C-alpha cells in the first residue's frame, strides 16, 4: 500500500494500520467460512486464519508497483496488498464485480492495479512466474521488487529448486516468503522431507535467508523490512521463512482428523492478532478501546463487502467467452 513506501520502523500509526489489515483478513475469512457452509461462496476455499501477520507484515511495506504472487491460500495476501475487500468477496461469490469478474475464484485472485499479479491452485506454480516478473523488473531498472508467497509443501516441488537456482544465478530482485505452517494438506512436514527448515533447504545457494516467528508481526515486519531494503538495492534474491499455524482445516469442509486442534488457551497465546495487540499496547501505540474500534470497523467493512458481493450480478457466459484470448491493443 503506497502510503508506507518510506516507513521502516513501526510507529503508532503504522501499528494501527497493520492491526486494521489483520482484523480485516481475520473477519473476512471467518465470514467466508460461514458463507461457504451457506453455499454463497464457491469452489475450494483455503483460509489463512492464524497466518495474518505474514500477509500484513510483508504487504504492508510494499508499493503498488511491487508485484506479489501467491498460491491457493491467498485471501490475506490480496487484502493486505490493497485489493478492495468487496471485490475480493464478490470474486469468491462468482459475481461480475469480482476482481476477475467471477471467472477466477478464491485460488486465482488478481488485481494488477495493486500489484497483485496472481494466485494459483498449482502448489508452487507461481514461484518461477514471480521470478520472471523479477527478471522484467531487473531489465527495466528502478527498484521494484517481486514477492512470492508459498507454503512449506511447495518446497518439495521441483520448480521450487529450479527457481532458487535461477534466482541466485541471475541475482534477481525476488523475495521468497514461505509460510511454513507445518502441514501440507493432511500430512505434516515430517512426512514430506527430512529438512525441517525451509531456510535450510536453500543453504547451498547462498541467498540471504532467515526464519522468523510468523505469528509475531513485529518480527516479520523487521526481518522483511531489512530484506526489502537489500533487494531494492539489487543485492540479489532473499528468502524469508515464517513459522506459523493454520488454525482451521486445510480447506473449508476438511474434517481435519489428521491432527489435534490447539487448545483455546494455547491459541490465545499464539494468535498473531491478540499478540500484536498486547505488544502494541505495551509500546503505547494503542489501547483496548482503539483495538476494539479497529475490530468493529473491520467487521463493518466485511459486512459491506458481503452486501456488495450479494448485490452484484453473475457474469454472462458471453463475458467468459470474450476472456479466452486477449485482443491486441490498437497501436
Amino acid at each position, binding site marked *: 500500500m503506497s502510503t508506507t513506501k518510506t516507513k521502516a520502523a513501526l510507529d503508532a500509526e503504522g501499528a494501527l494500520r497493520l492491526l486494521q489489515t489483520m482484523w480485516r483478513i481475520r473477519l473476512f475469512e471467518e465470514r467466508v467460512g460461514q458463507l461457504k457452509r451457506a453455499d454463497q461462496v464457491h469452489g*475450494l476455499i483455503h483460509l489463512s486464519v492464524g497466518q495474518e501477520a505474514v500477509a500484513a507484515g510483508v504487504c504492508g511495506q510494499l508499493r503498488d508497483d511491487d508485484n506479489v504472487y501467491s498460491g491457493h491460500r491467498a485471501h490475506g495476501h490480496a487484502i493486505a496488498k490493497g485489493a478492495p475487500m468487496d471485490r475480493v468477496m464478490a470474486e469468491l461469490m462468482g459475481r461480475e464485480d469480482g476482481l476477475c469478474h467471477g*471467472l477466477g475464484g478464491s485460488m486465482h485472485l488478481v488485481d494488477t492495479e495493486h500489484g497483485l499479479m496472481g494466485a494459483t*491452485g498449482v502448489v508452487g506454480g507461481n514461484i518461477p512466474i514471480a521470478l520472471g516478473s523479477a527478471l522484467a523488473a531487473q531489465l527495466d531498472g528502478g527498484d521494484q521488487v517481486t514477492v512470492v508467497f508459498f507454503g512449506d509443501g511447495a518446497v518439495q516441488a521441483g520448480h521450487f529448486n529450479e527457481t532458487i537456482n535461477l534466482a541466485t544465478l541471475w541475482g534477481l530482485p525476488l523475495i521468497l516468503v514461505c509460510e511454513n505452517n507445518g502441514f501440507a494438506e493432511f*500430512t505434516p512436514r515430517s*512426512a514430506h522431507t527430512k529438512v525441517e527448515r525451509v531456510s535450510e533447504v536453500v543453504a547451498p545457494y547462498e541467498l540471504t535467508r532467515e526464519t522468523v516467528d510468523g505469528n509475531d508481526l513485529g518480527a516479520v515486519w523487521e526481518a522483511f523490512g531489512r530484506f526489502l531494503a537489500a533487494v531494492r538495492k539489487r543485492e540479489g534474491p532473499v528468502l524469508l521463512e515464517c513459522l506459523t499455524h493454520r488454525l482451521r482445516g486445510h480447506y473449508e469442509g476438511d474434517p481435519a482428523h489428521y491432527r489435534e486442534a490447539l487448545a483455546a488457551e494455547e491459541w490465545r497465546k499464539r494468535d498473531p492478532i491478540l499478540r500484536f495487540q498486547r505488544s502494541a499496547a505495551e509500546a503505547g501505540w494503542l489501547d483496548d478501546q482503539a483495538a476494539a474500534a479497529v475490530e468493529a470497523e473491520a467487521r463493518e467493512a466485511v459486512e459491506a463487502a458481503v452486501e456488495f458481493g450479494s448485490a452484484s450480478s453473475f457474469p454472462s457466459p458471453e463475458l467468459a467467452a470474450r476472456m479466452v484470448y486477449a485482443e491486441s491493443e490498437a497501436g
Partner: protein
Amino acid sequence: MAQTSFVKAVNATLAESMRADENVLVIGEDVAEGGPYTVTAGLAEEFGTERVINTPISEAAICGVSIGAAQSGKRPVLEIMFIDFVTLALDQLVNAAAKAHFMSGGQLRVPMVLRTQGGAGSRGAAQHSQSLEAWLTHVPGLKLVMPSRAADAAGLLRSAIADPNPVVFVEHKNLYFRKEEVPEDPEPVEIGSARVARQGSDVTIVALSRMVGESLAAAERLAAGGIEAEVIDPRTLVPFPLEAVLESVRRTNRLVVAHEAVEHGGFGAEIAAEVQNAAFDDLDAPIERVGAPFEPVPLSPPVEDAYLPGADEVHAAARATLGLAPR
C-alpha cells in the same frame, strides 16, 4: 447386489488387490490419509505405510518412482490427485513409462496404474476441473480407461492392476458419491470392452464418463419424443472398442459422441474420424459432437453450468442427427 458408490468400489478394489498381491503398492499425496475424496481411506491402516506411501508434492518424481518400482517387479497404483497436475508428471509418463517396453526391445515392463480424477461441475475453477484424457490417447504404449459407474470402476481397476503395461485410470469427481448397485463380487472388466448402456435403433450415442449418465437422461427425453437412442459406454479409450460402435451405427445410421472435455481436439474427434471412415455409407447424417466450449473452466456457478455439456446438449445433438430442431 450390494449398495456402494464409485469411491467405495475403487477403495474396495484397491484393498482386494493389495490383499491378493503384496507387490501392489499405493503411492501418492496424502493417500495414507485417504486423500481429499477418501478413495484410499483405510488402506494404510490395513496394509501399513510401507505399502500405502504418502509422498511430498513432487508429481514428477513420484511418477518416476512408480515406473522404477514397476520395472523392478512391483505393481504400483500411483494417485495424481487432480488430472490437472498430470501435466507435472507427463515427461515421466510419456517419455519413460509409455516407451520403456518398446525402447528396450521388450525387456522392460511397466505394470503400473496411474489413477487420477478430473472433471468440472464442483466450482473447482480453471485448474481443478479439466478433462485431459485426450492427450494420453495420443501416446502409444499407454492404455486408458475411463469408467462411468462403480461396477466398471471395480472391474476395470482389477484388470488395470493385472495389466503388464502402464494404464491410466481416469475418474470423475462428480461420480464419486452417488449410490449405486453392484454385484457382490464384481468380475474384472476386460480393458477394451464396451458396454451398451441402453439399446435403441434410431441414433447411437457414444458417451464417456459423466456423460454416460447425461446421455441416458437425454435418451429418456428422446424416447418421450418417440426417438430410441442407443447409448454406448466404451469404458476404454485405448485400446478403443471401435467394432461395438460400428455395429451400432450400422443399425442406427446416426452417431453422437459426447464427452465433458473441450470439444476441440478432444477424443470425440478421433471417434468421429474413425467412424466416418469405417461406416461412411452407413451414416445418414453428420456425426455430431458434444463437448465443452473452447474456454477454460469458469468459477462462477451459472457460467460453469452453462459451460458444462449435459443432457440438453446430447438431446439437441441427437435430434440434429435426425434433422430435428432442438426442443
